[in-house]
């Protein structure tokens, strides 16, 4: 795993103001993040915690109030960075009057792709997301799942190096959710970096390498999922087909380091428990980094 | 829970809708059947207001789908739209863009077809102002007719609007028949196939007669639809149909139509004028006038006066002498001063005293009531009747000059006579002969015609004292003098209208040309006496404080 930094934010803050310039909401407070190439990075947090704001800032849809957001080492406001980015918005905001082919063709043109490349790419993507049978129907007739898939296809039209997914699994049925997760994992296999945000913990737990937990605009937790969830002083044995005798034996074997071990690891708490404990802690002591984390991840400097 | 709440909400909405329907129906329920006959309901408030102010479309006139569509299309802002268009029309008028001007007028009236003054104002604009801008008389005629067409459109949208109907009559009659170009206009009008329906007979294609018809319609609207006459008195309003008939008769004579046709035209005019005289016309102060019935009302005054006095003979004199008794010495002294020596102040006092001494019928009736209570009802009735007859009689006397009643009555009468018809014909032919460069024949015809005029003046001496006929006759005589000049002849000694000229030639155009008096034995007696009286009266009126009646009262003996 290479360690090129793809995304970097430095004390990134965002304050929403009303029409008169009065401060309304501090949506993001001094976020420091670094995301390396090839990672699947999850932004986690309850509604209104600043996940989407972060993504919008990274995309240049919003301008930071202070701090900087760098993507591929370039300022997020710089349009040219978009050449290597794919973005799937929270809901697929697409032109409903276009059909799948036209949609992809349109976005392909926006990447200034020549016609032949575009044609091939469009066909591939439609095939990949499994919408071959509906590619001539206008999007307004699409179901939620189909819209999501065509949304993903448009995010991949340029074969991006960095993919930002905003709530990729909301509104999908379990099968759809599974497929989406597989797709994400597949993207990592292709060496792409994925930044996703979600409030669905199971998704994040399943696919993310690292996560950051945000609450009320503040970074509460940051680290590898496995590390974060490890309970250090407990071991869990996971086995199959053991007779009573065998079980008895296993105890001996384990004590003597013999027998077939299917899995032997530290038991993990669920992400849900972790998450809730952080939220509770944050509510009790606002403005402080959560203390649950066992090990800080470099180069996490405490947020202001 | 939420399902229940939404159900409750729906019920509340329904109730609110139901409740709102009550005021809505109170406001805007349509009228069913006719509200006049008492059958059915008179509808909601708005419907009743509409009926009261006669605003509903069915009352106003034709409903035009295009107009309704345009009204709807402005989404209730037609007032503003009409205002903008009006501005635009003014601009077009200023910049002499007549096509767009008249097109804009159409749009305005489509938007607000029941705004009567718009029709009136802009029709006037077209017929009078726009037509004037054109140099070619055919163009002018076109725009005059455009104004008339415009007005006629207005009458379709606003049936029974007396103002528009009256204007139609006025435009057709006056704008065509009295313009400087009236000869040309009337010719064009007669030949105007676009204006006249195909089945209108040629003799009816006359601007005066058609104008008269529109006046009749206006009268009908006033009589039958309780419409008010605006912009002019009722008296003037009702005089026009007959007047237009007079103008018609005079005009066809000027165009060379004589004999029975002309006589019938004048006969109709006389009938119309009589009808006008019989009409009971309201005055501005809620009294009435009936121009043709002066004698009747005077008799009524007299009759009621006598009857009232008969109830209590001598009472009126008694009251008056009672009041005289009460005069102060100072007042008596003033009364004693001879009329001629009173100062202005003194005259005012005398007038005041005279009014005080005057016993009015109601004062008399009041006294009768005190003295003879059993006669009170009768006395008051008579006093009322007397008062009424008195007012009407004085109204008639005051109003007759307003419409030149006596003159037109006499005119319609004398024009029917053989003398008048012949006089007109001879003069007309004489003019034609003169135009055809035959001065001898012209002179002969004129002299015959003037003889006839002399006969007319003898029969109707009052006719020339009114301006119109007198001026007309003066013009005839001037033309005659011109014909004489052509023949190098002076005015002959036996010139039949000498007396008229002397009386009437204010500008002294002909008088100086008249031959000396002594050589005219035929008219000498009459003429000299008139002349004398004329001179006298003129001198007299210039003199200090001598009422003209004194002179008139003592005619000089021959």
């Amino acid at each position, binding site marked *: 795993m290479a360690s090129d930094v793809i995304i970097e934010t430095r004390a990134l803050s965002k304050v929403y103001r009303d029409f008169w*310039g009065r401060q309304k909401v501090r949506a993001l407070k001094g976020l420091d993040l670094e995301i390396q190439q090839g990672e699947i990075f999850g932004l986690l947090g309850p509604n209104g915690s600043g996940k989407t704001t972060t993504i*919008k800032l990274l*995309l*240049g*849809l*919003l*301008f930071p109030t202070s701090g900087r957001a760098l993507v591929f080492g370039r300022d997020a*406001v710089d*349009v*040219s960075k*978009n*050449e290597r*980015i794919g*973005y799937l*918005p929270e*809901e*697929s*905001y*697409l*032109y409903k*009057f*276009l059909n799948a082919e036209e949609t992809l063709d*349109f*976005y392909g*043109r*926006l*990447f*200034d792709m020549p016609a032949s490349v575009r044609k091939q790419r469009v066909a591939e993507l439609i095939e990949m997301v499994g919408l071959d049978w509906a590619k001539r129907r206008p999007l307004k007739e699409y179901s939620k799942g189909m819209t999501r898939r065509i*949304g993903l296809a*448009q995010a991949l039209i*340029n074969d991006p190096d960095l993919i930002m997914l905003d709530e990729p699994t909301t509104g999908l049925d379990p099968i759809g959710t599974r497929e989406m997760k597989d797709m994400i994992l597949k993207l990592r296999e292709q060496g792409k970096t994925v930044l996703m945000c979600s409030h669905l913990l199971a998704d994040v737990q399943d696919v993310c390498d690292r996560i950051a937990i945000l609450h009320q605009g503040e970074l509460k937790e940051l680290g590898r999922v496995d590390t974060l969830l490890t309970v250090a002083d407990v071991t869990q044995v996971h086995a199959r087909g053991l007779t009573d005798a065998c079980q008895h034996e296993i105890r001996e074997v384990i004590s003597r380091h013999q027998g077939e071990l299917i899995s032997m690891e530290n038991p993990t708490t669920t992400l849900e428990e972790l998450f809730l404990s952080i939220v509770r802690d944050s509510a009790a002591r606002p403005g402080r980094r959560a203390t649950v984390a066992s090990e800080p991840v470099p180069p996490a400097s405490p947020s202001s | 829970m939420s399902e229940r709440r939404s159900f409750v909400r729906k019920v509340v909405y329904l109730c609110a809708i139901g409740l709102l329907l009550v005021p809505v129906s109170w406001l805007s329920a349509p009228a069913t059947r006719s509200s006049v006959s008492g059958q059915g309901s008179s509808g909601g408030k708005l419907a009743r207001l509409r009926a009261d102010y006669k605003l509903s479309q069915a009352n106003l006139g034709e409903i035009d*789908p*295009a107009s309704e*569509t*345009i009204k709807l299309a402005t989404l209730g802002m037609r007032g503003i739209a009409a205002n903008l268009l009006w501005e635009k029309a003014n601009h077009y008028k*200023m*910049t*002499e863009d*007549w*096509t*767009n001007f*008249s*097109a804009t007028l*159409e*749009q305005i009236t*489509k938007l607000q077809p029941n705004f009567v003054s718009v029709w009136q104002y802009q029709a006037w604009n077209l017929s009078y102002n726009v037509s004037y*801008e*054109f*140099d*070619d*008389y055919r*163009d002018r005629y*076109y725009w005059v007719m455009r104004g008339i067409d415009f007005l006629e459109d207005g009458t379709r949208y606003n049936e029974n609007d007396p103002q528009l109907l009256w204007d139609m009559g006025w435009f057709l009659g006056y704008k065509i028949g009295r313009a*400087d*170009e009236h*000869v*040309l206009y009337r010719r064009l009008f007669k030949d105007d196939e*676009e204006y006249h329906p195909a089945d209108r007979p040629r003799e009816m294609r006359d601007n005066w007669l058609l104008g008269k018809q529109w006046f009749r319609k206006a009268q009908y609207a006033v009589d039958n639809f309780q419409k008010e006459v605006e912009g002019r008195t009722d008296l003037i309003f009702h005089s026009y149909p007959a007047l237009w008939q007079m103008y018609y008769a005079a005009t066809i004579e000027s165009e060379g139509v004589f004999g029975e046709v002309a006589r019938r035209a004048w006969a109709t005019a006389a009938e119309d004028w009589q009808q006008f005289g019989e009409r009971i016309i309201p005055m501005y102060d809620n009294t009435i006038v009936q121009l043709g019935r002066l004698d009747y009302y005077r008799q009524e005054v007299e009759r009621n006066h006598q009857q009232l006095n008969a109830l209590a003979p001598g009472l009126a004199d008694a009251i008056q002498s009672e009041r005289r008794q009460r005069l102060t010495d100072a007042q008596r002294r003033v009364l004693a001063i001879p009329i001629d020596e009173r100062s202005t102040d003194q005259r005012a006092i005398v007038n005041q005293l005279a009014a005080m001494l005057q016993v009015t019928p109601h004062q008399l009736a009041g006294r009768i009531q005190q003295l003879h209570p059993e006669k009170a009802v009768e006395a008051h009735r008579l006093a009322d009747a007397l008062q009424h007859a008195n007012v009407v009689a004085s109204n008639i006397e005051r109003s007759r000059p307003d419409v030149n009643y006596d003159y037109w009555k006499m005119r319609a009468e004398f024009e029917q006579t053989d003398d008048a018809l012949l006089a007109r014909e001879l003069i007309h032919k004489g003019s034609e002969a003169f135009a055809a460069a035959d001065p001898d024949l012209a002179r002969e015809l004129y002299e015959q015609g003037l003889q006839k005029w002399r006969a007319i003046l003898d029969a109707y001496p009052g006719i020339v004292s009114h301006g119109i006929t007198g001026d007309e006759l003066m013009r005839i005589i001037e033309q005659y003098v011109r014909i004489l000049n052509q023949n190098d002849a002076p005015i002959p000694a036996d010139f039949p209208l000498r007396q008229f000229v002397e009386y009437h030639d204010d500008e002294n155009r002909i008088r100086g040309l008249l031959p000396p008096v002594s050589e005219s034995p035929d008219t000498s007696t009459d003429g000299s006496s008139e002349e004398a009286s004329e001179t006298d009266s003129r001198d007299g009126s210039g003199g200090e404080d001598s009422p003209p009646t004194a002179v008139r009262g003592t005619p000089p003996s021959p």
Partner: protein
Amino acid sequence: MVIETEILPFWQWLLYGGSDDAFGALPWFFIAMITAGVVALLGGYLISAVRHGPIEGGDRTYRVVVGGLKNLLVLSPRRVYALARLTVQESLRRHVLVTLAVFLLILMFAALFLRIDQPDPFKLYVSFVLTATTYLVLLMALFLSVFSLPNDIKNRTIYTVVTKPVRPGEIVLGRMLGFAFVGTAVLAVMGLASYVFVVREIGHTHAIAAQTLQDAEGGGQKGRTETANAHRHDVTIDREGYGRTDSVQGHWHEVTQTGSREDAQYDVGPPQGVFLARVPVLGKLRFIDRLGEDKPRGISVGNEWGYRSYIEGGTQAAAIWTFDEVTPGRFEDGYLPIELTIRVFRTHKGDQDSIDRGILGSIVLRNPQTGLQSEMQSFRAREYYVDQQYVSRKLLDSDGNPIDLFDDLTHNGQLEVWVQCLKDEQYFGMAQADCYLRPRNQSFTVNFFKGFSSIWVQMLVVVAFGVMCSTFLSGPVAMMFTVAILVMGLFKDFMLRIATGDVYGGGPIESLIRIVGQQNLMSELNTGDVTTTVIRTADAVITFPMWVVASILPDFRGLSKVRWVSEGFDISPSLLAQDVSVSLAYLVGLFVVGYFFLRTREVAK
């Protein structure tokens, strides 16, 4: 008339301007752009400085300007094309074709509110179709352009667009081009439909009413035609069987007779004198008064509209037009076509004998240098009627000697036309544009579509404004903003005159007080000296920005060429090019403004 002064050649207009202008149009454009840029820079810095402090603000402003300028011209044709195409598709989805349906409906029911029996139905019909098209197309352009971008932002479809390597400029330009294309297509259909409509409604012929034909004096026949299009003509046919009708509703017809007397067939041609596109050559008008003194203007006869001034008849008073470049090369047919319109003012209508005849006038051609005059031609004035004279090259001078038009009557190509009124106490009225030479006619069809091009130009300007406004305002606000620009643009002249104090009633505040207080425009304000001074000062302060705004606004009334087409004058290519340049200038300027607005705003909430 529509053409008051000679139209400048395009390049001269663009680079140097007319004699009254300090600069040509292009220098003006750059001056305006630079001024606007400097003002925007200062304003932007001030706002930024207030928000972020002077140094941070300066930094941000610097980055916006430098980054903005760098990216301004990074335009990928493919992306612009894609966005324009999307715009077209979106317009179609928003039922832009309803406009067409409405237009066709209007044409179908035009008879309800257009009367053919107008004095000049051609003018009415042409101006009607052009005006209706203008309003419809401008409204359509307005509604489409102002809602598109705000809708994208509201629906967040913009997220998927701006996260692609799309520059804000491409979004603005794509929108402008897309709507321009839609407008162009709609206009093209409307233009064709209008053309067919006008030609079908105005084009007509008559049958000869055979029963009206009578033998005329000197051979030939006289009669009337049957009614068509709510009018009929008098016909005169000469002995050879060729004839023409009189002029009614602004046109006349040619009539040809075939066959002999008994079974003669009459063929009435299409209307003449309409469907014109005259190419006038204007001269300079001056007057001499009744005593022969030179005067810049004639007499006023008291018309509110001081456009024309008058000369007195029966005196030395004359109206003199001087034409330049009267050369044989320009008038190749060998004759000089002069068209003259005269207004008549009569101090009296004339007596019964002369009331039905026009006033006699005279026209003389004169060499401005030598004073040599052609033989006097007299004519009877007819108002609202263009009198056409074809002066042949071989003429007689005032003494009856033969002279040559170009050789003897012109001096350095200059020729004078003297018009006088011959009747005492009557007046002729004229304005500069009332007399012109007409070397040729342009095709009406071409001119008609040039008229539509002028609508196209206006549509472009509206689209540019609409899109620009929609880059920083929400849909309804952008609409109102653009409507305001449209309305103010229509009254640009008036606004300028208010701003420069040329109208009665004072500035905005003063006029408001006058309106509320129902005061006369001409009288002094009755508010007292001090208050009046305050009001006047406030007005003076207000009128400056008003002047600035009014100067920047597009002059829609000037761009509209409805009257040119409807009154039968060719829209000169130079003028059209000027208008197109003006609209392109707006397009470019507003593109830059829109680009900066879109670039400096956050598209997400």
